[in-house]
Structures are given as C-alpha cells and as structure tokens.
C-alpha cells in the first residue's frame, strides 16, 4: 500500500509535481527579468564548468573592486536645532571691524552655515567705504589656523581655565601684596570698552601699569603733535581734499597708518573722465620703492638720509629759510613749489618715526595752512597710540626688577622688540608672565601662562577709529576652541562679572547713547549700530592751536643727525603682505607677491640696480638664485638675498620687517630674517651701514622678474603696448591720448565667422589703471572667494603659483627713475578665446553671457589652453594642492620638496572650514582660472529672478571688485545700457591687452594718466 500523502495546500494536493518544480525554482514566480536571468542557468542543479568560472570571475572581481575602493569618510553633522536665520546655501553677513597689527578696515563677515568664509568691505563705513586690505581679507584664514591655542596653558602643559584662573589670580594677588609692579604690555587699544576693562583691572590691581607700544611705531608723529599742538594724537588726514600731495617715505597707499581710508580718499581725485579732467598731483620722495611711489605723478628717488634732508629743503623753500643740511634737486623744488601754489589744498605726509622730522613736517603743513583743511584734529585717529618709550620701559623694568610680572595682549615683543632675544630671557625669569595670544607666537612660547584670547571673529568688541566714530565687533561663529576673551579674563581677575557683551552694552548705554540723537531708545541704537557696524557720535571737536616751537633749531639738529649717517643707510619698512609680522604665519599673505618686488615667502635686501651691477650681485633669473649680502649696522648683522629694484637710489638698503618669525606652526612658515633688531631707536633709518659679500646664494620665490616693456627684437628696440599711458595734459587735448592705436586695431579686426548673439547678459569688466594702486587686496580676496590653494615656496620658485588674479608690474624709462604701471591680470574672458578652440575635450567653452568657463570634470589636463592663452592666466593643478583627491594624500609630491597645502595643515578639516562651499575644490591635473566669480553672478541672478525683476547694475559683483579700496574695478552687464561698465567699455581710455590678436577680451583697461605736465619740462 502506498504511503499516505500529506499535503499542505490545495495546490500541492492537486498538482504535486508542478508544485515541487515551482518550489525548487525559488525565483520562478518573480519578475520577467529574474525569469530571464535564471533561464540562462541550467535548472538541473549541476552547475557547468563555464557557469562556475563565470560566477567565480564575477564574484572575485566584485569583491576586489569593493575591497580596494576605500570611500573617503565625510563628516557632516546636521543641525539638532536649526537657527532661525541660518538657511543652508544662503550666506549671512555680519558687520564687524578688522583692527589688528595696526590696520583698520570696517568689514562685513560672510558666513555660510555658521562658518565665516570671507571678509567683505563695509560700504556703509564712512572711513574705509567698503575698501579692504590684503591683511583684512586674509584674517579669516587665521581663524582656522592650526597654530591657535586650544585652551589655557601653563608652560607647555594644557590646563583648565579654573586652574589657570586660580594660579594667575593668586600670583597677581601675591604681587599686589608685595607691591611689586606688573606690566600690561599691549599694542594700541582702540576699543573704549577694553580701555574701561583695563581701568577696572588696574583699579583692582593698582600695581599694574599699562604700557602701549606699536612695533611699527608712530611715536614720533604723536610726540611731535603733543609738542606742537598739545594733543598726543594722529590727525585726520583728508586725502580727498588735497590737490597736491607730497609724501616723504610714507607709503600711504600701502602700509602707512590708516592706508585703506587714504586709498579710498586718494582715488577720489585720481579718477579722470572727460567730464572731469582734473587730478590731484602727487609727489613722492622715497628711498625704497613702494606702491605709493610707483603710483605718484612724480617719484623722487633719494637715499634714506635724503628723505629727511629733503624736508629741510622743502622747509627752506616754504618758510623762506636757509638752513644748511638740506637736500634738494629740481624735482624736490617742484614739489615744494606745488605745495606753495596750493595753500590749504596741499598735504605733506612723512613716514619717518622721528619727532624732529615730524615737527618739521607739521611746521611745513602749518605754514601752508593745511591744518583745518586737509589735516584736521576734529576727529583724531586712534589706531596708533603707542610710545617708543614703553618698549624701553618694559625692557629696563624687567631687567632691573621693577616689573615682577608681565602680561601681553596683542603684542609680541620677543619678536618685534629690537631687544627681543634678551627680552625672552627676562620674561622667562619674571615671576609671572602671561600671554593672551590667540595663537602661537614668540612671546607666548616663553610665558609661564597662555590664556588664549578669542579670534576677533569670535569676539565682542568695539573700535573707536576716530574720535566719535565707533565700529562694533561681533562674533560670527561660536568659539572654536576653549578660549576666553581677554577682556573677560581681566574682568574675572578684577572681580567683575565676566560677561564682556553685557559690559560693552552697559558701557555704550552710559557713554555713547547720550552722544547721539538718532535713536530714542538704547535698544534701537544698539541693534542698529550692530547691524551697520559703525556709528558716528556727536562730539565736541577739540580745538587745537599751534604752539611756538623753534623749528629752525629742530631742522638744524636734524641736519646734524643726518650728517652722521654716512654714505649708505638701511631703510626698514613694512610690506603690504605681512606688515609688522603679526600675520607672517598666514599662508595666503606669505604667498602674496609683494607688488613692488614680486617676492613671496621671505624677505630680502632692496638695492639699486646700479649697486647690484657694480658689485656683481645680479641674480641668475633662470634658476632664481640671488646673492646673499651681509649688512652690518652697529653691532647688528643681517644676511639676506639681494633684490635690485628699479627706482632704488644708490646708498639704500631696504629691508622688509615682519619676516623671520620663529615660533610658528611649521618650518615652511619660517621665512626670511627678522629685521626688528635693527630698529634700535624705533626709527626706520639706520646710518653707517657696511656691507660685505658672502659668496652664498639663496633661491627667492619671485613671481615676476623686472622686465621693461621696451624690448629688443629683430626689428630693433620696441615697446609692447600692453599698458598705455598719457599725461593729463595730453588727455585733456585728446581723450584718446596713449590709446590712439586702438581705433586702427578695432578697425582691422575682421572675421569670416558669424559672431555669437548674447541675448541675456554680457559680463564685462573695466579696470582703471589710474586708480589701481597694486595693493593686492583683490588677490587675497580672490584666493578666499575661489578656494585657491596655497602651493608654498618651493612651488612658487618653480613658477607654479595658483593665483587667478595677479598684479603685473611694468617699468618704463630708466632703471634709476622708472615709471611703473600696475596691471591686474586675470582671465580676459575673450569672446574669441584662443584657449577654447584648442581643448580636445571641450572642457573650456564660452557661455551665452560671455563667460569663458572651465568644466573641471571634463578637463583631462592637456594644458594646451594654458599654452595658447596670450595672457597666461590659466593655472594647472600640478599636484593635489587642494587635497581633493584622497589617494595621494600621504604620499607627498615625489621629487618636489612637498606641498605647503599639505604640510601647513591646509587640508585638515579645521582649515578647510574656510572653503567657499559655492566653489568647486579642484582636483589634481585640471586647469583652473578666473571665473568672473560665476557663483556670485548666479546668486545675484537668482535673487533677481525670485523677486521677478531684472537684474540691476551693481548687484552682481566679483570678489576682486568688492575688495578694491579705490573702486578701480567696474563690473557689470554690457547689454544693460544703463550700466556703469557699458559707458566705460566705450570710453576713449579703454583698451584691451593684445587685442590685435582678435581675442575680443571682456576685460578692458583704462589708460594710466599721470599729472606730470610741468616736470617733464624741468
């Protein structure tokens, strides 16, 4: 008898065979795709050899691929509670102020998703009017600096704030009880609230003395004003009112005092048009060439001693005296006469830190009735208040034991003090030494305690730049590290509530609110001030009157001093990039070519070309090997490579300050030599210099060698018309002066091909060479906006800097007294671009809006486009500069010395916070270049679209344009007949560079006009 059949379902019962076959075939009742797939395999269950191999092959390959591709880990943390005002993808701007290392810029901080990523100028500011400096632009990178202190430290050891406070406070109390003096050593404090905090602190600790010292000192000017006018302050120089400006060693367009303000004001009278063919006239007497000198209508190169001596000569002419010891030449006489011809409309400024010199300058300005007109004490400038005596006081006090303790805030005397080395030992031996530095520096590394201050972008503060003009500083990100604001630390020790925000508000309510009449309530006043970032209070203008000082005696004394200088002098000066050295650890600034020398990553000795030739010190320009020269000034010796700069007079050795930092995060940041030890008397000019050749050479990371445009060719010596110039006189006669050939060039541009329609926008930029000072703020702004990598000294020596925008510098005339033109050079967005047709993969192409675009994803890196670019503005990613490709991160760079971006930690998550999320970070092996800030254009277009309106002129602005303090860059849509750029595009002064190639550039330049009518005849 057959076995009983047990069934589980009706189907099984009715048709058991089919049921079992179906069940065996697990996927049979699925989709058609599965059926087809399964059909390929035999159903018998005997896998054939072929199938086995097929599957084996597939699975091994799949496993290999899966195992070998390590996906990079991306950390992203969503908001747990989304702040109301933060919309992902939309930038927020907060008004603030950059006041550091003696520089002042009213700024807006651009934040994205809570991260500050870019500094913009605050256009509402009546001081800097939207202009920025290179340092301000770069300061955002220092927020994400790996060298920042992560918390309080005792020696090298990390401690908690509780412990730090306990120990420091007990030490302070102990010193107070002993009656031992403590020095609070700071640079200029322009914050009224901070001053109040210090006052409170001193009230609690009367043994504390506040010493104010600026490494780049204006003590001479301040003291002279005190002697002459009884007010120790810097007057308000109003360059916009001056018709004649004579500068003597004062780089007022680059580094001198409140230069961003002066640049904006200077430009007012330098903007020439047919409607307004007037210009101020500028003379510049200087030894070491600066952008101010190069921009001057008449540059008068004299050696450093003669900078001072020329003042005596000018004084003689102006005051009709005959004091011996002056130095004059026809140009100096012309300058003096020009000043006389414009009484009350002239301005004489001098950058030499010497009371006698400044007294002389004051006397000349006084004689010319410039006070009250172009120079005013109505609202004195507060950004420099330091005294040279303070430096000596500190040194002596520590040495003889008067000061048992010392606190450092925003000052780094171990590096910036002439006797820094000795000071380091004295500080280390002091009973208490505290530094409030926010990142590693020379002083904080020898202090007992480091109580790190917040970065200014994390802080509350206020800055009184001029009397009654106050800017607010507000935090734009919460503290990145366990830091505490300096003011709160002091308040803690003073026994006050450690809430600086409340303190400021209280201070403002008590002191500033009554001085304004616009807002009825304090809240409205406070909120609006924070929003605008600046407030102008009603003040009672100080009345000053000149005291009677015997200037003749001062001049005679000065003449005696000058005669002791000897033949050659050293001139110490600040560069636009690193200034006094505070920012000499900022890779963006280190890689910024100095506009005058074009050197990056280090300092050097500036000498005259004739000196270099005479002493066989000309460099090998091909290998960039520069001869090292040894200078001896008193007991100080310094060895640096020699750079011959046209326009430097004989007898001049210029040495930039601010380099040679030692306490920095990486060896790559240690560049050049520290020249502060030479600044013995606080005066930039050191006499009696002897030099000796060392026979050594050193490579300098120089980006441009000094070529003149007049070059030899097969047709003889001829000049390239890359920049065009005319004098004012010529311009008035013919607006096309200097640009006469353009008509013919345009006439001869013919093409067989149809031109493209630009129905929408046609983006165009016009750069006024006349108002471009070469200050390079735009270069750093471009770096920040477009995530341009830092490549480091080694790569710059190999001519691989990545800057999308560079300042070209051209000399004409003689080497002794050249005229110089600065020309910002960026992608010209040619409508007939040579780069576009040569790319084999069409990775670079033209947009319908006239933009020359790069498609990074498509680029394979043939570099054909870069070769065929007549402007050489295309940049190739030779290595993984930005750290975008992960696979070679730890492998360095083969036979090169390594990448700055890698070694300086610029690929670390911390510093990558500065990246602009709107701009692609480029990978290795692709070309990149200026995009006309296409992300900003897109943003502006979308805003207009959302509001259902046409884009207005000036809404879309490029980063370089907004950074420019002189508004030399105009950008806009040429199809908009109303746009400012449209008018300039057809201006008689407008020309394109090598236009005869029929590139049809969308960037035009306006000719440089110099107000040099009379001097040519002299």
């Amino acid at each position, binding site marked *: 008898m057959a076995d009983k059949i047990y069934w589980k379902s009706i189907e099984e019962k009715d048709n058991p065979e089919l049921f079992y076959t179906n069940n065996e075939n697990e996927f049979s009742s699925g989709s058609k795709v599965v059926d087809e797939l399964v059909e390929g395999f035999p159903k018998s269950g005997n896998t054939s050899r072929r199938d086995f191999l097929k599957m084996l092959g597939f699975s091994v390959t799949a496993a290999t691929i899966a195992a070998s591709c390590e996906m990079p880990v991306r950390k992203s943390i969503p908001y747990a509670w989304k702040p109301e005002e933060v919309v992902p993808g939309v930038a927020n701007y907060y008004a603030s102020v950059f006041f550091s290392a003696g520089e002042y810029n009213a700024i807006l901080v651009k934040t994205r998703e809570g991260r500050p990523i870019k500094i913009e100028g605050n256009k509402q500011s009546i001081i800097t009017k939207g202009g920025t400096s290179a340092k301000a632009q770069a300061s955002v990178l220092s927020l994400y600096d790996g060298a920042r202190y992560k918390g309080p430290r005792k020696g090298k050891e990390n401690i908690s704030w509780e412990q730090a406070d306990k120990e420091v406070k007990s030490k302070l109390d102990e010193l107070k009880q002993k009656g031992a003096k403590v020095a609070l050593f700071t640079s200029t404090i322009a914050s009224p609230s901070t001053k109040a905090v210090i006052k409170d602190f001193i009230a609690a600790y009367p043994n504390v003395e506040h010493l104010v010292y600026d490494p780049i000192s204006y003590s001479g000017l301040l003291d002279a004003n005190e002697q002459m006018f009884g007010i120790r302050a810097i007057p308000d120089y109003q360059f916009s009112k001056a018709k004649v400006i004579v500068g003597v060693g004062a780089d007022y367009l680059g580094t001198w005092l409140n230069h961003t303000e002066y640049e904006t004001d200077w430009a007012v009278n330098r903007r020439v048009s047919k409607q307004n063919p007037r210009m101020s006239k500028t003379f510049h007497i200087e030894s070491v060439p600066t952008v101010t000198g190069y921009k001057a209508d008449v540059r008068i190169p004299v050696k450093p001693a003669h900078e001072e001596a020329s003042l005596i000569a000018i004084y003689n002419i102006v005051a009709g005296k005959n004091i011996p010891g002056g130095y004059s030449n026809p140009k100096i006489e012309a300058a003096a006469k020009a000043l006389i011809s414009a009484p009350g409309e002239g301005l004489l400024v001098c950058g030499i830190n010497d009371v006698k010199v400044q007294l002389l300058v004051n006397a000349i300005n006084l004689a010319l009735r410039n006070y009250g007109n172009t120079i005013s004490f109505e609202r004195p400038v507060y950004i420099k208040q330091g005294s040279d005596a303070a430096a000596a006081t500190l040194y002596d006090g520590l040495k003889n034991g008067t000061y048992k303790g010392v606190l450092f805030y925003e000052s780094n005397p171990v590096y910036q003090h002439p006797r820094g080395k000795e000071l380091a030992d004295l500080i280390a031996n002091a009973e208490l030494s505290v530094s409030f530095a926010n990142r590693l520096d020379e002083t904080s590394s020898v202090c007992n305690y480091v109580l790190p201050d917040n970065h200014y972008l994390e802080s509350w503060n206020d800055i009184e730049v001029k009397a009654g003009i106050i800017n607010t500083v507000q935090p734009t990100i919460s503290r990145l590290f366990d830091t505490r604001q300096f003011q709160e630390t002091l308040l803690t020790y003073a026994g006050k509530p450690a809430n600086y925000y409340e303190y400021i508000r209280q201070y403002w309510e008590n002191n500033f609110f009554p001085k304004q009449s616009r807002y009825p309530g304090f809240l409205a006043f406070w909120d609006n001030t924070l929003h605008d970032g600046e407030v102008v209070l009603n003040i009672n203008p100080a009345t000053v009157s000149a005291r009677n000082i015997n200037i003749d005696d001062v001049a005679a004394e000065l003449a005696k001093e000058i005669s002791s200088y000897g033949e050659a002098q050293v001139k110490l000066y600040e560069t636009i990039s690193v200034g006094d050295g505070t920012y000499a650890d900022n890779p963006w600034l280190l890689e910024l070519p100095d506009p005058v020398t074009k050197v990056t990553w280090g300092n050097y000795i500036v000498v005259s070309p004739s000196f270099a030739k005479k002493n066989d010190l000309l460099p090998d320009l091909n290998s960039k090997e520069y001869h090292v020269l040894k200078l001896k000034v008193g007991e100080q010796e310094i060895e640096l490579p020699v750079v011959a700069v046209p326009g430097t007079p004989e007898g001049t050795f210029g040495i930039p300050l601010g380099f040679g930092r030692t306490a920095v995060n990486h060896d790559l940041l240690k560049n050049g030599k520290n020249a502060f030890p030479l600044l013995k008397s606080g005066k930039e000019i050191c006499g009696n210099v002897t030099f000796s050749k060392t026979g050594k050479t050193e490579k300098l990371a120089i980006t*441009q060698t000094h070529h003149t445009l007049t070059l030899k060719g097969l047709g003889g010596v001829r000049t390239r018309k*890359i920049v065009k110039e005319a004098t004012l006189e010529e311009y008035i006669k013919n607006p096309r002066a200097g640009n006469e050939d353009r008509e013919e060039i345009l006439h001869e541009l013919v093409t067989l091909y149809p031109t493209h329609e630009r129905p929408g926008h046609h983006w165009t930029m016009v750069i006024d060479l006349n108002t471009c000072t070469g200050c390079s703020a735009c270069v750093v702004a471009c770096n920040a906006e477009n995530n341009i990598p830092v490549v480091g000294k080694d790569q710059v020596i190999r001519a691989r*800097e990545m800057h999308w925008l560079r300042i070209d510098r051209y000399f004409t005339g003689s080497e002794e007294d050249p005229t110089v033109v600065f020309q910002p050079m960026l992608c010209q967005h040619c409508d007939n671009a040579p780069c576009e047709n040569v790319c084999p993969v069409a990775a670079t192409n033209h947009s319908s809006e006239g933009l020359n675009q790069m498609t990074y994803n498509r680029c394979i890196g043939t570099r054909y486009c870069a070769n*065929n670019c007549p402007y*050489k503005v295309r940049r190739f990613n030779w290595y993984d500069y930005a750290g975008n490709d992960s696979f070679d991160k730890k492998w360095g760079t083969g*036979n090169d010395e390594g990448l700055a971006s890698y070694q300086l930690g610029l690929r670390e998550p911390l510093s990558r916070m500065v990246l602009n999320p709107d701009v692609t970070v480029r990978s290795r*092996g692709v070309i990149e270049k200026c995009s006309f800030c296409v992300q900003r254009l897109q943003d502006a277009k979308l805003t207009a679209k959302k509001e259902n309106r046409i884009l207005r002129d000036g809404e879309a602005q490029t980063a370089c344009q907004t950074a420019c303090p002189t508004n030399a860059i105009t950008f806009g849509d040429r199809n908009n007949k109303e746009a400012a750029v449209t008018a300039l595009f057809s201006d008689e002064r407008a020309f394109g560079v090598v236009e005869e190639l029929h590139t049809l550039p969308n960037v035009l330049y306006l000719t440089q006009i110099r107000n040099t009518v009379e001097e040519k005849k002299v």
Partner: protein
Amino acid sequence: MHAYESEFREPLIGPSVKNYTQITDELVRPTEGNPPLSWWLIFGLMATGTLFFLFCLGWTIWFGIGTWGLNKTVGWAWDITNFVWWIGIGHAGTLISAILLLFRQRFRTGINRAAEAMTIFAVICAGIFPLLHTGRQWLDFFIFPYPNTRGPLWVNFNSPLLWDVFAISTYFTVSVLFWYSGLMPDFATIRDRAKSKTRKFIYNILAFGWQGTAKQWQRFESLSLVLAGLSTPLVLSVHTIVSFDFATSVIPGWHTTIFPPYFVAGAIFSGFAMVETLMLITRVVFKLEDYITINHIESMNKIIVLTGSIVGIAYLTELFIAWYSGYLYEQHAFYNRALGKYWWAYASMMFCNVVSPQFYWFKSLRRNLWVTFILSIFVNIGMWFERFVIIVTSLADDFLPSSWTYFTPTWVDVGIYVGSICLFMTLFLLFARTFPVVAIAEVKSIFRTSSAVAKAERAKQQGATHEGYVGSYQVGVLDKDAKN
C-alpha cells in the same frame, strides 16, 4: 621585373651573395639559435632602461605632472618635444616602404622592413607622450569620440590635439598593416625551416596561412600597392597635422604658416638619420653588410642633405619673415630664440641640422660609415633641439613679459625621454631577434643570378682582370670604367 638591366647599374646586393639559399640562410639566421653576445649586452642595457622608463611613468601618474619641470607659462616641454621627435622619426619607414615602392626604387628592399618596424616602434613611443602628458591620465579616453551617456558629449573637432589623435591612430594602423602584410611570406619561410614544434606553431600562426600560391602573391602585390597608396599621403599629412598643434595657435613662434612643409621635411630628415643609426648597428651585429649596403647608406645620406637643407631654409625664412612682418611679438620671439636665454638650444639645432649634413656634399664622406654614424646621431640631437626650441622658447617668452619663465627639467623628464629611447631599442632588438630584419622575399626579387652571371661573363670577355663573381659585376664595371 625588367627585361633590361643596365650594366652600369651597381648591384643592389653585396658581392658575397651567391644564391637564393644563401639569402634565406643569412636572413633567417638571426632568428634561429642564440643571438651574439653583443645583442645580449645591448638588450640587457635597453631592457633595464625600459624598466626605468616604466618606473618614471608610474611616478608621473602617481604623483602628478608636478614631478616634471613644467610651470605656469611653459605648459609643454620635453613631453611634446619627445612626441614630435618620435613621430618625425617614424616618417622614414613609411617614406621608404610606400613612396619608394610606388616609384619602384627597388633598392628599398634591403632596408624597408627595418625602417617600417622602426616607424611602428617610433609611433608607439610617440603615442605614449600625448597620453602621458595629461593631468589626469586615467581620463584620457575622453579624447576619443565614442557614444557616451554624458549627453552624449563629443570631443572638440576644432582642436588640433584631436586631429592628432586621428592622424596618429590612422598612421599607426596603416603602418602596422603594411608591415605585417609584408612579413607574411617571410614568416612562412621561417615556419618552413622551423625544426621545433613550438616554433613551427608560432610562425605558422604569424604567417597567416601563407602558402606562396600564385593567387596569394598576386593579392600580396595588390595589397602592397593599395597600402602604399594609402600611406603615401600619410607621410605628408601626419606631420602636417602635428605641426598644426603649433601653427593654429596664437603664440609667436608657433603661429607660422611655414610649419607643415618644414615639419615634414624635418621628419624625413630625422627619420632617415634614425634608420641609419639602427641599420649601421644591425648590419654589423647580424652581419648583413651584403643586404644593407654602402649604396643604401649613400642614398639615405643624399636625402639627409636635401631635407637638412630644406629645414635650414625654413629656419632662415622664419627669421626673415619675423623681421619682415614688423610684428613686434614675432620679432622678439625669434630674436629671443636665437640670442635669448635658450641661445644654446638654438645654436645646437642650427649646427646639428643645418651645418652638419653639409658634409654629405662630399662623396667620400657620404660613403664613410663612421661619419654617417656620427652625423646620424647629430641629426637626431639637432631635430630634438628643433622641437625643444619651437615649443619651449616660444612659450617661455610670449606676449606678457610679466609671465616669462625658464624651464628646467627634472630627473623624471630626463628619465622618460631616455627611457623612451630604451623602449624603442628594446622593441627593435626583439624585432631583430624574432622577425627577419630584411624582407627575404623582396630581396630575392632583386637578386638575379642569370643576368649577373651573364654580366660577369661579358666583363671577362671585355678584359676584366679579376674573376667575376656570381651575383656581382662589380669587377667588370670597374674595369670597363678604367678602360674608358
């Protein structure tokens, strides 16, 4: 086959060759048995160099183009110099096999096989550079127009670099076909002589079923003619297109209409020089003096002096036009080229390319093997410098003086260049060891025993003092000349 053969014509094959068997024996011998020690020595050296070449390639791809000496202004230097140099070298092979075939210059048979092989290896070496010089070598496939899902996104047909892709790939394909079709009868000969089974098997496959039937020969001849017809325009077009890389650009020193003829002449110039360098070594190492004769060398030297002079005129024309144009940028480019920071490169180029071939106006120097060998090396050095001068000096100092730079190579640049020569030599040595270096079947077609014997007899009758040799009527001719 001509019925009449001038008795004044010198024989195309050396005096010691007596019969067809000897030809087969001598020409197949290098592929059989152990090669001479000299072969092993050179091969060992070149293979090591090739390994270093591969190392440098890997280094470049791993670390990036930054390992080369290029900079923001000079975006091409040794890479494209090498590329153009190698492409130029390849030209002699095609010229010899295709153009001389069409013109029925039968002396070509002694050297055409090796010259064609050289062409292929040179194109291989050349092809590496455009692929290697890109920033992202792994995406090189973007330059091929293939259907894709990116749009589809096509290549830019306006770009001379793309034209290069087509020109070179066409050139390579046709050259390989031409070379291989010519090899088939010879492979069959080797197969038929092979003793070991493996050898027979391999050469059987390589021979592609060649039986030597009349139909096969007829088709073989037709195919040769067709391929020769295809190759001939390529000789002119390939280097013309390569020259477009420069000629269509805007850079002063590149933007020149003279480039196509100038480049083609230069290519033939350097190609023949390289053929000579290789032949002079090969004929000694493999004892092929009877097949690659002094007459071959002399003919090639004549071409060298001709093309060298064409190139020289081109150089002078460039200078003249630069001056005559009145165009300041062009004027500076050429002034700078000759007297600027790269004057030494220009001087080397001028000496090697223009001065040194002039020695060949003298017959004794044309027929001197040592002079030929040294000058062939000189010519190739000169031609390398020509490309270097064009590419680097033009880029280094172009329109804006602010961007002017200087190019200095790194060891990787040098390694890749020298390595590519090693690769070329390795391939050639392997070729010489495994393939017949002289086209056996074709050489046999110019070897005519009957006429040679007759000529020798006649020479004897006319009073030749020496015994005439079969296969040679040298003696008779010389004596006849003496009598007249």
